């Protein structure tokens, strides 16, 4: 039973192909625009609002949602929960692609993308939290590439190298967890420098902790979410173990995510109390904050709990989508919505159509590459030659 290179009949004009084709073509136009006319033409950014959704969505959400990589590999290899083994490769792949796309998106956002290696290799601004993010993302991307590489090598048939790399798994996993802890939390800490600009309900000295903790359930939810998508559209690529055990992975992560989210909910409340920001709850900002906290943390946490208790896969998947949306809401709130909250609405930022289109382009690119890899390499199934791990 050779699942590799088993590609369904080559229908060129499927709905998927046409839609992605259009988006990618549009993306190319935008890319040309961005690099010929500048940020001012493509985005609604201005001097008062220097960061838009390319940072808020592409970077912050991208990194948070790509946390599945470290969460899954850590639970499998470090905590020894072997039942997550089949989820490791898809998760690592998504994480790798996620980070690669984050870096790609940064090329659009920063002024001189060819200087992106500067902070690491040329002039180290060590007092900056962005330096830490940059350094860790760079290192972690490397780690993810190595972690992912066995799949590619199996596909290409580099047996010796593959076996050698596999021996590094534990080391890479530990590196991955350390680096993820650092940059996930540092992304939150980026906003520690702006107590005067970020709304007090979102600004907290615990921001790094919030970002790290929320990245955990973001990653788990993303793994469940992807799993359900793969199940629907890439079923033919899965081997029997995958088909049989993937619901087990979903329930396991559902239980874990539910627990972590409950904890997250309470540390958010503690932050509220430490900052003495209760009175803000009764403003319109407060309602928005409560929507995020109750509607997109507490509610999906309960959904997860019920779903995993009753072994209800639909509920768990719904909760996963809900949580992913909640994470996006949280990251966008901090970077865009509650940022510069004191300014009159005329001076606030609102993404332009082209900015949104570029983000969609990058996400689509990710899906296309994911599909390309998954349909060719042993991600959702085990390579017949390497059955015994």
């Amino acid at each position, binding site marked *: 039973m050779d699942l590799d290179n088993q590609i369904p009949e080559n229908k060129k004009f499927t709905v998927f192909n046409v839609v992605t084709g259009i988006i990618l073509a549009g993306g190319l136009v935008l890319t040309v625009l*961005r*690099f*010929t*006319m*500048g*940020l*001012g*033409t493509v*985005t609604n*950014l*201005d*001097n*008062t609002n*220097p*960061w838009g959704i390319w940072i808020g969505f592409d970077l912050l959400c991208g990194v948070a949602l790509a946390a599945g990589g470290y969460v899954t590999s*850590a639970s499998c*290899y*470090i*905590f*020894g929960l072997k039942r997550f083994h089949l989820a490791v490769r898809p998760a690592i792949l998504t994480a790798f692609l996620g980070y690669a796309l984050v870096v790609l998106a940064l090329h659009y*956002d*920063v*002024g*001189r*993308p060819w*200087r*992106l290696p*500067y*902070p690491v290799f*040329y*002039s*180290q*601004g060590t*007092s*900056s*939290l*962005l*330096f*830490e993010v*940059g350094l860790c993302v760079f290192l972690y991307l490397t780690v993810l590439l190595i972690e992912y590489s066995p799949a590619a090598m199996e596909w290409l048939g580099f047996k010796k190298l593959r076996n050698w790399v596999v021996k590094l798994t*534990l080391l890479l996993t*530990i590196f991955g*967890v*350390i680096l993820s*802890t*650092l940059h996930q*939390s*540092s992304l939150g*800490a*980026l906003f*520690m*420098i*702006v*107590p*005067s*600009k970020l709304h007090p309900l979102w600004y907290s*000295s615990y*921001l*790094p902790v919030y970002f790290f903790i929320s990245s955990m359930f973001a990653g788990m939810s993303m793994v469940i979410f992807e799993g359900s998508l793969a199940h629907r559209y890439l079923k033919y690529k899965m081997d029997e173990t995958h088909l049989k055990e993937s619901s087990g992975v979903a329930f396991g992560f559902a239980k874990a995510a539910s627990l972590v989210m409950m904890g997250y909910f309470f540390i958010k409340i503690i932050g509220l109390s430490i900052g003495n920001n209760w009175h803000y709850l009764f403003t319109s900002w407060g309602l928005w904050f409560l929507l995020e906290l109750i509607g997109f943390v507490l509610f999906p946490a309960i959904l997860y709990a019920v779903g995993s208790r009753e072994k209800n896969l639909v509920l768990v998947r719904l909760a996963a989508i809900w949580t992913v949306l909640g994470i996006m809401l949280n990251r966008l709130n901090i970077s865009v919505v509650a940022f510069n909250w004191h300014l009159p609405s005329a001076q606030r930022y609102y993404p332009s159509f082209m900015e949104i289109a570029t983000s969609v382009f990058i996400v689509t690119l990710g899906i296309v590459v994911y599909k390309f890899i998954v349909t060719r390499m042993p991600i959702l199934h085990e390579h017949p030659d390497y059955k015994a791990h």
Partner: protein
Amino acid sequence: MLISRRKFLGSLGAAIGATTTGTLTKAYGAANKHFKGYPGSSGVLHDTTLCIGCRKCEQACNKVNDLPQPEKPFEDLGVLDKKRRTQADEFTVVNQFGTQEKVFVKKQCNHCLEPACASACFVKAFTKTPEGPVVYDASLCVGCRYCMVACPFDIPAYEYDKALAPRVTKCTMCAPRLEEGKLPGCVKACPREALIFGKRDTLLKIAKSRIQNFPDRYIDHVYGEHEMGGTSWLYLSGKPFETIGMREDLGTTSAPELTSGPLSAVPIIVGLWPVLLTGVYAISKRKDKIAKEEKEDALKAAELQANEDMNQKLEELREKITKEKTAAINFEVKKALEEVSKEAEAAKEKEAETQDIEESEEKGKQEE
């Protein structure tokens, strides 16, 4: 407090050596580290009560920095009707506040003692110079705009219209002119001396003496003395600063202080996580191992049991066979003795039977 350190030599050994000697000889506690900024650094005092809103400073700034000519000439004071902020080609702007009694306030980089932009920059493109100005080095800048996010005064601007090499721009306090011994362009141009250049300490004294001499004219506060850890640019005002577009809720905590917490948490994670994670790994591994061992033991025990059972059976079988054999032999002997005298044909038939028994005996031995 001044902290003494050895020049950073780049090697780990030297670095560790330096930190240890530093702590040993000076014995400074971590909690009392307090930096007062560069002694004798320069700044500018802006007395807003004197400003007449003539925009001469804007004009001078435009000229000394070789900026493009604005749409409306600097003589057009109608520009003041709208609130403005610094832009990529406007390092300083004058804003007008109040309707009856108009107050004019010049806005530009405040050249913080502990600049947020420098603290935020991940390529050290911003530097607080000992002379006072905070300067920007475009040759390092990546264009991430975190400096603009970080700046509490909303000063740095960005060349959004440039596709390939956009710079962050802001007032430089005319650092190049200062080096030549010249005054900053705006200070030189101000007809009213609403801007005075000098040592920050001196300016603070002047500002305070003005407040003391004219208590009715000034709010009893020098803006910039402590805001965000203090700024090189200081302000005096007759109206509450909040009403002339200067935020009073920024606090006195400087940007590096705000981020020092999360920054110091990082190394701890690197120190602890490997220990913790390998620990967890070891525990889970050990659990696996124990589980495996137990399984193996159980297997062995089962095998042992099986062997014993079989041996017993064999033994029984053997005994049985031996008994049968002896019985048979006895029987044969008896029979032979009894029937020795019988006929020769009958004796031949009996011999064949004995041979059969012997064969089965051999089989049992082979099984053993």
